[in-house]
């Protein structure tokens, strides 16, 4: 029982369950496919796509991040819901080792999704309307596009470890990450708070332009997202390391 054998076991869990390998794949398909589709349809007529090209490049990711977050929840949520967390902990009773294995797998798969989704979207946009890779902030935007994905997976993994329940984690994360924040950001008073939510702060780091309504810089946005992920992972660890399963 070492980090290597535990990672092999986690990789086996990942590849032998359809819902686990399919969700990251779907995430890449949605990110690249919808970005390509929107540029094919409106690329030459919609000026907003050229004003801040990152809005177009990451258009598909608005949808692609949903299955990716689901993947983060499923990693541990499926173990809690099926009861396999008990056989997993019987095989790997050092809870830190099991949690670390999940964390590494989630990071790795998240990075792959980030790389494939960002590269694919860039190539798609470049092919249709062209991308100015030298534009100020473009390199940052691409780096953030890759890093956002593992951070999102880790955030969802941590929240699920805290709640120890797949359905509860989905119920909390769906409105918090995807649906609610856009609407919250539309209410002037709430916007000041909403900008600090993980997906708002993280996605601001994608943008080339500076939004005067947002209190922090682009890189800080990614750091805020990372802080959320770290906080969730810590909370998840406290729950996993202390509670009976």
């Amino acid at each position: 029982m070492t980090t290597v054998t535990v990672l092999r076991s986690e990789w086996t869990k990942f590849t032998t369950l359809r819902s686990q390998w399919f969700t990251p794949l779907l995430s890449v398909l949605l990110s690249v496919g919808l970005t390509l589709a929107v540029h094919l349809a409106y690329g030459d007529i919609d000026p907003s796509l050229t004003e801040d090209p990152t809005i177009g490049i990451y258009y598909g990711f608005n949808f692609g991040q949903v299955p990716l977050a689901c993947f983060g929840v499923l990693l541990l949520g499926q173990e809690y819901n099926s009861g396999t967390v008990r056989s997993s902990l019987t095989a790997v009773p050092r809870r830190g080792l099991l949690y670390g294995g999940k964390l590494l797998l989630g990071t790795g798969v998240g990075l792959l999704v980030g790389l494939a989704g960002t590269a694919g979207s860039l190539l798609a946009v470049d092919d249709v309307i062209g991308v100015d890779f030298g534009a100020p902030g473009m390199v940052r935007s691409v780096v953030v596009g890759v890093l956002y994905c593992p951070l999102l997976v880790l955030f969802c993994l941590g929240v699920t470890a805290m709640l120890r329940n797949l359905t509860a984690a989905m119920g909390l994360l769906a409105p918090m990450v995807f649906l609610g924040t856009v609407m919250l950001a539309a209410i002037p008073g709430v916007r000041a708070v909403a900008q600090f939510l993980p997906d708002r702060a993280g996605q601001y780091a994608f943008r080339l332009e500076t939004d005067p309504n947002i209190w922090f810089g682009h890189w800080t946005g990614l750091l805020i997202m990372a802080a959320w992920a770290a906080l969730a992972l810590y909370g998840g660890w406290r729950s996993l390391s202390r509670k009976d399963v």
Partner: protein
Amino acid sequence: MIQVQGLSKSYGETHAVDGLSFEVRPSQVTGFLGPNGAGKTTTMRMILGLDRPTAGQALIDGTPYAELTDPLRRVGALLDAHAVHGGRTARAHLLCLSRSNGIPDRRVDEVLTQVGLGEVARKRVKGFSLGMRQRLGVAAALLGDPPVLMLDEPVNGLDPEGIRWIRTLLRGLAAEGRAVLVSSHLMSEMALTADHLVVIGRGRLLADASTADFIAEHGRPRLRVRAVDPVKLADLLRSSELTAEPAEGGAWDVHGATGEEFARLAADHRVVLYEIAAQQDSLEEAFMRMTADSVEYRAVAA
């Protein structure tokens, strides 16, 4: 060998397990008995480190389970046959476990064949019957060829063939020198399988003895007597100081006398007996009597 030392688990005011100590020794099947809710499963979960004890400890050959290097090679456990993700195949489920402990993949195919699931190894568990899931759980327990095995209610919900299979398997594992702990609330099943019994009720140890000793101690001896004239026999029993209960067909179960004593008494009163047999309470009765005070939920007679 499993050593349970002063193990306790409390949930607030409720003491699920209360100062439990016993050992599970190699080369024998130890039956872990108690009514539902007695604390058997909680004890097993604490042995595996899934639940934290409030006090005391459980050791595997002197080491807490959580500190074992490759625990599946030391202890094989079947706790809940349903704790399998239905979307995985039987083989994939076992690979997820075996690879974490560095057990070679071919061992997975070996144990699947051993439990009779070789044909369905690549089928999703979703379609498995309870009996098949139970066999898969046993396969998981056997993966690391461990010297200690622990099974929680393995015969629950099995058909007679499945029950006989488990019984033969457990006897075989003990014969190979392994320490086997198997919990059950069915005394009769344990009478056939276990060499040693650990009986608990309300989380406390009620008995820790060999099956034979347990019966000798707790099975009350009695005489089954039958007379040519049942009325005369009834009169005799009423006038004697013996306690007796009527049994089927005019027979009586008599306590407090040996066969010789009772034969002499009958002869003195000219009661002609045609049956007099020494009997022992069944293990089931001994168990019921012993745990009667410790049953947590009991149906109240109307």
